[in-house]
């Protein structure tokens, strides 16, 4: 009986260790995006902004690849928190970006959150 309990505990531990904190992606190529179900509820409104406003000028793939690799896919620049803020400001100032400062702030917080989640082991 003790052996069974020990085995069960080990299996449970193993499964718990394998649990991934990462925000998952789905789709390929231009259709690549984040799986909304793996994003925390408090960030859902910001994610909605991301997938409706940012895609007016570029695919979600560009954002996903930048976060997953740590490099902006086109320029090759390091994509960290500082870069996320800089890109946010750039998009804020872009004529006809149709994004307010509040929109940008929420998206920047969301991207920082995904960055942090994906850095967890």
């Amino acid at each position, binding site marked *: 009986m003790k052996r069974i309990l020990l085995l069960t505990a080990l299996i449970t531990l193993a499964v718990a260790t394998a649990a991934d904190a990462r925000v998952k992606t789905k789709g390929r190529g231009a259709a690549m995006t984040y799986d909304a179900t793996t994003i925390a509820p408090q960030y859902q409104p910001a994610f909605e902004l991301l997938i409706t406003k940012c895609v007016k*000028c570029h695919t979600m793939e560009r954002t996903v690849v930048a*976060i997953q*690799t*740590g*490099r902006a*896919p*086109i*320029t*090759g*620049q*390091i*994509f*960290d*928190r*500082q*870069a996320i*803020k*800089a890109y*946010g*400001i*750039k998009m*804020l*100032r872009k*004529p*006809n970006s149709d994004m*307010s*400062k*509040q929109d*940008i*702030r929420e998206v*920047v917080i969301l991207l*920082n959150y995904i*960055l*942090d989640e*994906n*850095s967890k082991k």
Partner: protein
Amino acid sequence: MSNKLSLLAGIITFCVLHLVVAGTSHAIPAFSRAHKVECTTCHTIYPELNEYGDAFLKNSYVYVGKGSKTAKKPAAAPAPAAATAKETPAGDAPLVKGDGDAGKLSKLKAGAMGASAAPQATAAAPAEAPAAEATETQSEGMVLAGIPEQLPISFTGSINYSAGDRNNASPGGNNVDFSAQSFKLQAGGNFRDKVGFFVTYLAYSQGASNDNTSVTPPNNGTNINEFFMQWRNALGTPVNVKIGRFQPKLGLWKSNNKVSMTYNYIPYSYTVGTLTSGSVFRVDQPQDAIELNSILGKRFFAAAGIVNHKGQNQKDGYGHFSYKFGGADYLGNEPNVDLDKEESVLDFLTVSTGAYGYYGENGVYDNNSIPRNTFYRAGLDAEVLYKIFRLRMLAGYGHDDNVLLNTHPTPWTDVFSKTAAVEAEVTLLVNLIAAGRFEYLQETSDNTPVNPTLNNNRDIYIRRYIATLAYAPLENLKLALEYKYETGPNFRSNSYDPNSINRIGTASATFSF
């Protein structure tokens, strides 16, 4: 002989093949191909530059951020890719020894690709980064030699249809004109971030046809418009050295940096005197020159240079400085906007100001018996950017002491010129811009008119009102409609009439590939 022909054929085949291979990349010009970015990274609607395009230009065609010394270090809470990154100090090139160190070679190649001055991440994750991939997939020899993998050439063609009342139509011109206006070749880029280069070759511009009307207008002439290179940060200083033929850095904008199709801003493009014997000097004309320029403190730009005229020992001199308040700086860094604060006008406001001066002489080529014209130009420019609005303001003042190159001063040889232009622009959509411009030129002489029936004895004025609507259905294709209303347009001819009016509508298609 046959060997030489074979070699020539081989070179031509090589070039053509390169151009064909380039077709697999984005079908847009040289800089886009080289840096794999969209036209709108640097342009509003081609060829007008946005502030990142201006930073790219000022940085000798080195892509800001990809290999510039201004690349930011990883932040305190870095991305996974940079979590365990080590940094290589800027300019600290790895030593290369003969015992085959693959790691060092990789770093050297990365440096050759323009990343040497930026912090280098050595963690595993950056190996996935496109920049690193690009380095690995390129030919090692080409990378180390600093030679661009693809020929950095692009082409720009312009086709115009115009209609209206034109009082100064040139021979072959008519009131409704279908015109294959021009076709240009351009090349530009940099060699290992050390030397920038740029070439514009005008392959065709439509000339006048004075023969049978069935004759298609011939080529007006081919010409090297600009052809220069710029040594970046010469000898480790912040000073860039520019040599060759180029538009001396005077005004804030190069001649094609606008959405309107015809006429550069009048303070940059006007000339003084009559067509047959006046000065041909223009502020925006490409000249053979040496220029030193530098970005100081990220927001201040200064340039000074010497110009040589063929057949004239005396050199011209010029200077320029500009300063930018707000917006991205001249190195392409974003302003520090606090996202936690309420939206403010200052978050979106950018003001650029510039001033310039040019002093020189011109005259008849290799003829010292004819007096020369000593002249100067001075100007002030400003640009205000706010969200979708852009306002450009230009003012210029000039003086020529002997426009007609007379041995004994006669009326209309000593000329003062005043110019001004205002252009307002609104970005209606990302690819749709409307612009309206007013510009004004006045040329006056201190000498008393002796024969007021001749234009060269009285003051002249020209006013232009230009409305433009530019649309880019594709980033490399610009369609534009323009309407011009001009008073006194033939100010350089002997039949100058201040009351004559031009009303010209133009439809234009410009494409680049």
